[in-house]
C-alpha cells in the first residue's frame, strides 16, 4: 500500500528517469525476418497509479465501450492543428464513396457529421503525440432542433509512453500514433482506414493480444484491488480438443489479491512489476487449478481476462471501465502496437 502511495506521489517530470531505473537490463529481443529490431519487450512495468488530469467528459467517450484494436504505422504530415479540415475531408470522402455505391450504413438517414477532436493529457512523456478522437454522428434528415445526435461510429488514435528510441528515429514529418481503437460498423472502419491510408501514407493491421499481454493486464488490474475493488478476476482459456473446450476460472478478488501480494512480498522493486512476478502469479493460479482437475491449462491459450475495471479478449478487443487506471493499460497496448512497426 505504501509503495502505491509513493508511486502516485512521483512527480510527472521524473517519469523519464523512472523509466530508465526500471530498466531494460534483461530484455527479450524481437525479430523481424532477417534483422534485429530495436524494439524490445520490457520485462518490467510501473505499478498502475490513478490519473485524474484527463478531462472526464472526454474520458467518458472512451470508457465502457468495447474497442476493436488495430495498429497503424506513423502518419506522414499529420497535423493536430488541421483537425477541422480533416473533418470536412473525411466527411466528403465518405459521401463520395457512398455515391460510388459502396454500402455504408451510417444510418437510415443520409446526413452525418464527422468530428475530429483532441483528448488532452492522455500522454506520459512530452514526446507522445496527443490522442485524436473521431466521432461520426448521424443527422436525421428532419431533425428537431436540439434533438440528441446518435454516434454511429467512433475511433481514436493514441500513443501513451511510446518507445523514445523509436520515435526519435522517425523523420520529422511523421507522427507516431500507433494504437487505433474503433467501435462501430466494420464498413465505416474500413472507409476511415482507407482515407487515412491515402492521406497520411500509413498502413493498418489488426492487433491481437497474446497470452503474455493478457497476463500483464490481469496482474495490473489485480494490483489495483485495494484501491478500487475489482469484484472478480476472471480468466478464460481455450483448449484445442475436439470439440474445443472452453474453461473459465473466476477467482474471488480478495483471494486473487492475497496470492498477488504474497508473490509481491519478496520483491525489491518498489514501484515496478516484473514479468517474473506476473508469470508466478499466473502459474500460481494454474497450479491451483491443476491440483483439482489435473489438466494443463498451459496446453491451451488464454483467451480472456476480465475484472470490473475492464476486460480484454485475445482477438484484440478491450473494454476499459475503471478509467482512473486507463494509462497503464494504454501504455501496454501502445507497446504492443509499436512492436508491430516495420523497421
Amino acid at each position: 500500500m505504501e509503495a502505491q502511495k509513493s508511486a502516485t506521489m512521483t512527480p510527472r517530470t521524473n517519469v523519464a528517469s523512472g523509466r530508465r531505473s526500471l530498466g531494460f537490463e534483461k530484455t527479450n529481443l524481437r525479430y523481424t525476418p532477417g534483422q534485429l529490431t530495436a524494439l524490445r519487450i520490457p520485462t518490467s512495468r510501473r505499478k498502475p497509479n490513478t490519473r485524474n488530469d484527463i478531462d472526464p467528459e472526454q474520458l467518458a467517450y472512451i470508457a465502457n465501450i468495447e474497442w476493436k484494436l488495430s495498429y497503424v504505422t506513423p502518419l506522414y504530415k499529420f497535423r493536430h492543428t488541421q483537425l477541422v479540415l480533416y473533418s470536412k475531408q473525411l466527411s466528403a470522402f465518405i459521401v463520395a464513396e457512398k455515391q460510388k455505391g459502396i454500402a455504408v450504413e451510417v444510418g437510415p438517414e443520409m446526413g452525418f457529421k464527422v468530428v475530429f477532436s483532441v483528448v488532452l493529457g492522455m500522454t506520459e512523456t512530452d514526446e507522445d503525440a496527443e490522442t485524436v478522437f473521431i466521432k461520426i454522428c448521424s443527422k436525421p434528415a428532419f431533425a428537431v432542433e436540439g434533438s440528441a445526435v446518435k454516434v454511429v461510429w467512433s475511433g481514436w488514435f493514441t500513443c501513451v509512453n511510446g518507445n523514445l528510441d523509436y520515435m526519435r528515429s522517425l523523420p520529422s514529418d511523421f507522427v507516431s500514433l500507433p494504437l487505433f481503437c474503433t467501435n462501430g460498423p466494420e464498413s465505416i472502419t474500413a472507409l476511415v482506414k482507407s482515407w487515412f491510408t491515402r492521406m497520411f501514407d500509413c498502413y493498418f493491421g489488426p492487433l491481437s493480444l497474446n497470452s503474455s499481454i493478457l497476463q500483464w493486464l490481469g496482474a495490473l488490474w489485480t494490483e489495483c484491488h485495494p484501491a478500487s475493488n475489482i469484484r472478480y478476476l476472471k480468466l478464460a482459456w481455450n483448449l484445442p480438443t475436439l470439440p474445443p473446450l472452453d474453461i473459465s476460472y473466476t477467482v474471488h478478488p480478495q483471494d486473487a489479491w492475497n496470492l498477488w501480494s504474497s508473490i509481491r512480498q519478496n520483491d525489491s522493486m518498489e514501484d515496478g512489476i516484473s514479468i517474473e512476478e506476473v508469470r508466478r502469479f499466473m502459474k500460481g493460479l494454474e497450479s491451483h487449478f491443476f491440483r483439482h482437475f489435473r489438466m494443463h491449462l498451459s496446453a491451451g491459450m488464454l483467451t480472456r481476462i476480465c475484472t470490473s475495471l475492464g476486460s480484454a479478449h485475445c482477438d484484440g478487443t478491450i473494454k476499459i471501465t475503471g478509467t482512473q487506471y486507463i494509462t497503464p493499460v494504454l501504455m501496454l497496448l501502445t507497446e504492443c502496437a509499436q512492436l508491430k512497426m516495420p523497421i
Partner: protein
Amino acid sequence: MDAAAEALLRQTVRRIPSSKLNGVLGRWGCLSEAQLGSLESMQPKWLLCDNLISLCRENDLSMKHVAEVEMLYCIENPKRGMWYAYQMVETDDEAQSLELMHFRERFKAHLKDLIGHVSIKLKRHQDESVWIRIAWGDNFNRPNHLKPTYVMHHLQTPYVFVSGLTNKHKPLLFQALVLAAGYSSIKNAHLNGRCITALRDLLMRQYKQVFPSSCPKPLKESNPLPNPNIENEHAKLVEHKQRAAAEAFGYEDPPKLERATYKLETKYREHGNESLNGRDEPFRGVVKFTSSNLLESLKYCITSGMASTPLTPLLSSITQKGRNYFVIRDKGPSIASDTLGPDH
C-alpha cells in the same frame, strides 16, 4: 381458432424444418388425407402456414389441438432450451405401483387446486416416458401457450426433467408433482443440459446401462498404423489413456453435456508460497467447463495428454454421480490431507 392459437401454430410451424413438417402433421391426425396432400410440397413456408391456418379453421380446430401439434414436435425433438433435472425423495410404497391414468388424474387435480388458470396436457411417449405440457396463466390472464413449461418423467423413477420453468411457477409444479407421484419432497439434482436424453442416461444409468464400466469391452482398434515402417513407442500408453478416458466418460457416444461448474472452496496449497499456505481461509473461485460436447472434449484431453492420468475424481464424478454442478471443499480437518471430494 382464435388469434392466440394462430400465433402458436405459426410459431410451431416456423420451428419445424420443412422436411419434417409433413410427418408431424400426419401424426397429428387432425387433418384429412386430402388436406395433407394439398399441403405437401408447398413452398415457401409462410404460404404453407397460411393454408394450414385456413384448413384448421375449416376443421374447426381450437387451441387444444394446436397445443397438441406443438407437444408432438417437442417430444420428438426436445432440443429447445435448457433442461434441468430434479430428484424426488422419500417415497411411500404407492409410488412403486403408480399407473399412468392414476398419475394423470392426481397431477391435474393437484395443480388445478393450486392455480386456477392453467392448461395441462399429458402424453405417454414410446419409451414409457410421461411428458407434461403446462401453459401458465393467472387470475387476469389466460394461459400463455407461447411459453409453455415441459416436464419429462419416467414413472417409478424419482427423476423429473423440466424445461422453461419460471421461479414463480416452480413451487406450484413441484408440489403437484410430489403429491401426484407419492413422494414427500423434491430436490435439485444439479444436472442441466440441452440434450434431455443425455441427462436421462446420466441419471438413470442403473436402469439403462449406458456405461458398461464394470465389464469393459475391447476397445475398437484405434486407427491401426497401416505402414510397417511406422511404429508408435507409446502405443501401450495411448491405449491405456484411451481406456481410462472411456471408462470415465463412456465408450462411443458419451452423453451430450454442454457444461460443468465447480465452486472451489479449498485451501491454497502450492510449494513455495508459505504465506498463503498457512492461511485457514479457502481460496475461492468458480471453474466452468463449456464445450459443444463436454464429455467428448474431456476424453480428448486425457488421450492427448492435456490432462494427466489417473483421472481426478472431480471430473469422473460427472458421469458417476450424474451431476454437473459441484461445490468442492477440503475433506476433513487436516490441512495436510490431499484428498478432495465433491460434497453432497
